[in-house]
């Protein structure tokens, strides 16, 4: 488990979020309330396509990937939005978590079932204490 986890708040600017992702190895970041309790997460996998394109365009290009190169106009428009968005605009409220006491097997099964690359580890008071991914699990075997 990686205990060095940057925490986000609802009002954190999207541009700050991008800088944090750029400087870390994490693909998700927890969002906490004023008391430090987990209330959601921001996932790079979900956020990155929407940085360049609108949600509708992402959906359209999923069906028609061969048109991707023709949507460069939209990229310039959306780049400006990164200074206007905050975490509350982009966070997910459904979060899959495990506790420090849960086994590695449970973590693996949960990540596989949810198609997630990382899970947030929480304590008894629902506060994030770390992140775990497949590499961490692999490291724990040696």
């Amino acid at each position: 488990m990686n205990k060095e986890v940057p925490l986000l708040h609802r009002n954190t600017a999207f541009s700050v979020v991008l800088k944090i992702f750029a400087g870390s190895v994490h693909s998700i970041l927890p969002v906490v309330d004023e008391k430090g309790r987990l209330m959601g997460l921001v996932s790079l996998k979900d956020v990155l396509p929407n940085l360049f394109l609108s949600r509708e365009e992402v959906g359209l290009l999923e069906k028609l990937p061969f048109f991707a190169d023709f949507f460069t106009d939209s990229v310039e428009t959306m780049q400006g939005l990164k200074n206007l968005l905050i975490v509350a605009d982009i966070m997910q409220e459904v979060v899959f978590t495990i506790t420090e006491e849960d086994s590695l097997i449970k973590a693996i099964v949960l990540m596989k079932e949810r198609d997630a690359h990382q899970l947030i580890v929480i304590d008894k008071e629902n506060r994030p204490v770390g992140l775990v991914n497949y590499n961490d699990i692999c490291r724990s075997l040696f």
Partner: protein
Amino acid sequence: MVKPEIIALSVFLISYILIGLERIPRLYTAIFGALLLIFFRVFSFEEAARYIDLETIGFLFGIFLLVKVLAESGFFNYLALKVGQRLNYNPLKILIVFPMLAWVLSSFMGSITVLVFMSALTYALSKILKFDPIPVIVGEVCLANIGGAGTLMGDPPNIILGARFNLGFTQFLAHNGPISFLASLSALLVIYLMNRKKFARCNDTLKKEELKKLSPEAAITDKPLLKIGLWGLGATVFLLVGRDLFHKFLPMELALTSLLPAFAVLTLRGRHPRLKDIIYKIDLETILFFAGLFVVVGSLEKTGLIQRAGQSLFNLAQRPYGLISLIFWGGASSSAFIDNVPMAMSFGYLIQSLHTLSNFNIRMLVWTASLGLDIGGNLTPIGASAGIVAYSFLRKEGVRINWYVWFLYSFLPTMAALIVCYLLLLLKYKIAFY
């Protein structure tokens, strides 16, 4: 004790209203309605099951499978890109040719899948080439429904009526095909005249040159799957034609013509990664919806309500031309607001009743009803499944469209098509070609 005909009529009307409102998935409404009829003893389970036309459901199931195989292979996107390339991605030519492509495809594959792909691709092209997608997509819906009216397999109402009255592919093609073609030309002419100035101004040469470099083959995700899908669909058409021409030597139920090729494809290539789970990806909701609806509509026939409606219609119309007019325009205007599938089922029973009362030729009534029901659905976004698909897609993409805008673009082309159909139907009757 409440009379069975009152229960049947109540369940029928409430189901229709709920299906029309689209707040609840129509499948649940239809199945629940069917179960209520059994609960209130309008009929037993066995009787209800007899009203489910397995020929229609089987045929649809097979067609859905084959079309899904083609869809998974990227066939529709490939075809549209190929056509677009030939048109040099000229928006004015796209306005005319893409609806015509929808007309051709819907004649053999059903309009719903065709519109799922064509509306997405047309919309993407409209964003790249900067033209208004609404006239093109509404045009595609209109022409898809007109095209679907021309063959047995094109639109669900035709499948329902064809199965009920044992009318085959070649018969629909011979009688409805030419009318559908001429009606489509009239609709296209109106679409062109309405929109030519606006589309002639769209001319992003730079983007067109870039698009021309895009190879249509880039849209194909699985070539072997495409080949086998085309073989399967070709086999279906072959069996449909063979069934009509050689029915004395090779009697074959309608459902087998699509189920045999579909399951032959799946059995021979079932280990293909994209085919393993394909059966879960087809539109089973529509199949189950049909099953429930057959029972709900069948209750009207069981309780004698259809026969009474037929008598009233016969009294109202009296003469043949009056009957043709009533069936055609009644079917067209009702299918604008009510899903044409339940209308086709109701009309099936009505036609049988009218034939009994008036000795009027059944086939003439079937051609009349099928054309009216298929094409009338263009007038509103909910009149036909193709329209529902396209309208929902445009709304989801944030396009500014509502019922009024839809009507603006669909009314004149649809009326042109309906008038052409009506005049040709009268001519058909006059020359006794039915």
